[in-house]
């Protein structure tokens, strides 16, 4: 299927439309809302299911040195992307070093929902990917934070003091990393038998749950946009759309070097192109409180996420088909 057909079809998928519904509802100031506890429950479900499935597929395909290389490459990507992002932001926008570093951390890290959405698109196309990409995703969550703190400290020494030990434990053991890796391990250990046991829980309703979660993300993104869009200068918005493409290019190069499959390439591109909106914001509040959280979050959730969901993912899949096909 060519890229325009893919993109067109993607735009009218239930997933994208649910996000659009949420976005529209909150921009129109409807009081539609998903309770916090329900949103968290949906995200626990998605993390568990995607992690578990990745583990099962590693159980089936067996393990090789590839996993180790991919993990290392993921860590390197996550640590490197903030350098690029920071340089671009300082060049084109007026963000100060601290805000630029905070934004850069978000773009080096990853968004699991973007990963999940790409995975759902691949599944719909019948394309498989290396199960260990789940572990790579988890490995890419944290390194960007380290780079960003270093960048902020360089630019503004008072701002980011010596990171305390507790911070590192917190970042590395944050709930989404632990659940993703834990579910991956469970899937790996229990394999296809385990999957058969709980398949009607983690497979059947998966896309529907994703739709409701995207509805919630649309609501939250819309609320962020209507409150904080004025904080985003045109240059910053341009960054929000351009940076995913830069990340995607870095991801594509890495995927080629690793020799990943078409699906694996699409996933790695997507991860590199995506921006965190859960783990990194919390870490930034602790370690870089001077950064204005509304800037990075509105950019990540209100600009980059919708871009990736609508145009990015079909583009990354098309690119992967060209490059690794």
């Amino acid at each position, binding site marked *: 299927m060519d890229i325009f057909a893919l993109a067109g079809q993607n735009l009218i998928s239930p997933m994208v439309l649910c996000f659009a519904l949420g976005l529209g509802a909150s921009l129109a100031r409807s009081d539609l809302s*998903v309770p916090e506890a329900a*949103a968290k429950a949906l995200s626990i479900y998605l993390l568990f299911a995607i992690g578990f499935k990745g583990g099962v597929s590693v159980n089936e395909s067996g393990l090789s040195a590839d996993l180790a290389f991919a993990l290392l490459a993921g860590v390197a990507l996550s640590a490197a992307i903030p350098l690029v992002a920071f340089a671009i932001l300082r060049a084109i926008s007026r963000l100060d070093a601290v805000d630029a570093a905070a934004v850069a951390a978000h773009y080096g890290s990853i968004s699991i929902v973007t990963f999940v959405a790409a995975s759902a698109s691949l599944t719909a196309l019948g394309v498989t990917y290396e199960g260990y990409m789940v572990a790579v995703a988890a490995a890419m969550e944290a390194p960007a934070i380290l780079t960003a703190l270093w960048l902020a400290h360089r630019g503004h020494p008072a701002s980011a003091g010596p990171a305390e030990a507790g911070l590192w434990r917190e970042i590395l053991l944050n709930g989404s990393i632990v659940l993703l890796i834990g579910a991956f391990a469970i899937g790996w250990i229990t394999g296809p038998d385990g999957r058969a046991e709980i398949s009607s829980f983690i497979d059947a309703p998966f896309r529907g749950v994703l739709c409701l979660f995207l509805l919630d993300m649309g609501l*939250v993104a819309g609320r962020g946009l209507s409150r904080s869009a004025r904080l985003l200068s045109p240059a910053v918005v341009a960054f929000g759309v351009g940076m995913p493409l830069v990340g995607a290019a870095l991801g594509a190069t890495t995927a080629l070097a690793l020799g990943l499959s078409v699906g694996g390439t699409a996933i790695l591109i997507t991860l590199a192109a995506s921006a965190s909106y*859960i783990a990194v914001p919390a870490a930034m509040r602790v370690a870089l409180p001077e950064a204005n959280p509304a800037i990075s979050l509105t950019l990540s959730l209100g600009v980059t996420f919708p871009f990736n969901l609508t145009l990015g993912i079909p583009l990354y899949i098309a690119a992967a088909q060209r490059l690794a096909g």
Partner: protein
Amino acid sequence: MQTHQAKRIEIIIEAPMQRRLEEALTRAGVTGYSILPVMGGNGRSGPWSREGQVGRAGGLIAVVCIVRPDAKDALLEAALAVLDRHIGVVSVADCEVLRAERF
């Protein structure tokens, strides 16, 4: 009804700082506190709400601490050290308590 003088200290602080505040209070010898959820608010950094949020960033909690008057300063110093560069509001009010032996 026999009551005793005490201070009611309310610390509204970012949720990601909860663990650090709790540790600091414990180190400062605070014997008890309760944490209440906050569902939204507004301040110089704009309005916020917990609705539909998954991450802890972008949320506050309210820590209520009833202490003997003489424990007030140690507590405030501990809280201030944690708050430091962070968003948050600390208020202190006079109150009376029953069962003072519990403080």
